[in-house]
């Protein structure tokens, strides 16, 4: 990937909102959490929002790290393995009850399922299909606007 900082942030927000939103809409009711469906939805969307908002911060860090790369690129694998620290941070915040608005208890399996079900499609789409509707995206530092 060849992002600029603005492109990183825009793509992150757009893909998590659209793909993350769709995935969450579909899977929230079946997540292994003992709570009414409305609460499941509420918590799952709060988790998604947390991942997205924190993601903006992470993107700034990645942008900084990228400056040490001569090519100023972000290899495909980096875009995948960053799910580990990002997922861990959100999980720790959930454990510490530091995510505002959560009503139920987000279990570890529920969190893992939702996190991966969102992250993997977002990563896959960013690495190819995204270029189909947006032909200028890859040449403009992944900016959408």
């Amino acid at each position, binding site marked *: 990937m*060849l992002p*600029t900082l603005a492109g990183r942030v825009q793509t992150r927000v757009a893909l998590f909102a659209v793909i993350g939103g769709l995935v969450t809409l579909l899977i929230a009711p079946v997540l292994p959490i003992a709570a009414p469906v409305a609460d499941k939805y509420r918590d799952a969307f709060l988790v998604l929002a947390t991942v997205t908002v924190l993601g903006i911060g992470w993107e700034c860090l990645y942008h900084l790290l990228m400056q040490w790369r001569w090519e100023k*690129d972000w290899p*495909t694998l980096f875009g995948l393995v960053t799910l580990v620290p990002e997922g861990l941070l959100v999980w720790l915040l959930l454990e510490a009850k530091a995510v505002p608005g959560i009503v139920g208890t987000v279990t570890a399996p529920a969190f893992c399922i939702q996190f991966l079900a969102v992250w993997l499609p977002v990563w896959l789409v960013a690495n190819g299909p995204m270029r*189909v509707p947006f032909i200028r995206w890859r040449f403009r530092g992944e900016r959408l606007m």
Partner: protein
Amino acid sequence: MTKDEPGARAPEAAPAAKPVTVQMRSPAAVGGGDLTEELLNSDWWTDAMVQAAGIPIVDVPFVSVGGGIGSFVTVDYLRIASVPPDRMRVLSNIEFPWKTYEYLTRVSQIPRGERIRSDSASRPDNIWGFPSYALAEAVRDKSLKPLWQVLVEPIWADYYTPKAGQVFAGLEREAKRIGFREMLVTGQVRMVRRRQSGGYFTILTPPPGTEPTRRVAYRSQFVHVAVGYPGLRFLPELQAFRTQHQDFHHVVSAYEDHEHVYALARTKHLVVMLRGGGIVASRVLQRLMDDRERFGLSTEIVHLFRTYVSGSHGPNAWNRRKGGNGFAYQGFNYPKSVWGGQLKSRMRKLEGDDRATEYKLMGGTSTPYRRRWQAQMREGRTGGWYRAIAGTVEEMRLENGMIASRVMISGGPVEVAADFVIDCTGLEADIAEHRLLADLLEHSGAGRNPLGRLNVERDFELRGAASGPGVIYASGATTLGGYFPGVDTFLGLQIAAQEITDDLARRGFCRHIGPVRSTSQWLRWVFSRQP
């Protein structure tokens, strides 16, 4: 090389099989159908001047000159942006767009089965770069290997690059899909001149005997110039040696056919001297080393670098390129982000000297770090049959059938004797050595950029060459030095094509490619349906 056959040492072009369909052709008038003094000397032409010369006029709104990869990707974009084939003509001296590219890659040791330099998503036959070459290869070969390589490149594997044959097969399919042959007219383009009432005349010299007149004029509102390399040059001392001794056998360019070197190496012990530290030098090295291993040869290689790179280099930790054993290592000919990321957006804002300085910082000769090449060179160094030296050649003589070079190295002069010298530097000639480009500079208002090539805008419009509502666009190697450095690559040519298409959409020549059109056109691509 004659001025009319720049760069491309491709075999003579044959006439297109299909007759040209034109929108309107005015009858040839009084003159003999050739250029007149009046035409040659006038910067602005009128229809009457051309008619008086007896040159038939063909009307078509868009003309692309060159017919190589640059023309191909541009008309491909425009076809996808709704332009029908009868509104465009490609004027070219080759019969299929990858002919020059295939010739140059083949002689410089990339036959169809070898992998080229550009990456998985640089697909000149697919404007979306999706599915990428790696994905297509994975599906075709039912193998996960290409995808794995793309996943872990460039750190745990070399960059994935497609095989030349896969690129050509894709181009052939896309050429068919967009009706490329319908748009192609073969011949040599002599000049593009501005027309007083707007637009341009592009003068084509058709192959002898195919047209009643010596010249045909294409009258169009838009012209696109993508003529590839203005010409390739030898290193000055090698050129002098060739001319002085009339010896075109022992001193050869990697960009011309030099199979005789490899053939002779199979029959006797040879010492080969290589010049240059770019990818072509790496290719030639690989061929010599592969042959050595395969046929049990004893070929010795002396590799002369003018600039010897001994390690990582660059002004600071944020701008450091890897290097070693003479080479600067880089996947592609510029840092990757010039094709889309940070460097692309930075360069777009730089002017004049600032731009030239930036070009210097990230440019220069480089070659990819490939594990196989590294292993071969290591073996050669240990075995004492591959030697790299850094220096400049002071004198070359012919002695006992060998070329003796006096090389100035840091410790003083040394003598190196070799059976053959292969020039892999690929120096490019000045744009004015190309007749058409010289004419543009002299008569059509075109100027030079900070690197001395054609000065184009961010949307690849040739600065100073506008003619009423008419525009000349240029892309490829002749425009290096502009706001976008990656011009001379597949992806760079596609980026230029996209800018040109967007500009032409603003001017009402084609439709804007928005998300809906892009997606529906992609589906047509997938199912091999016409745009």
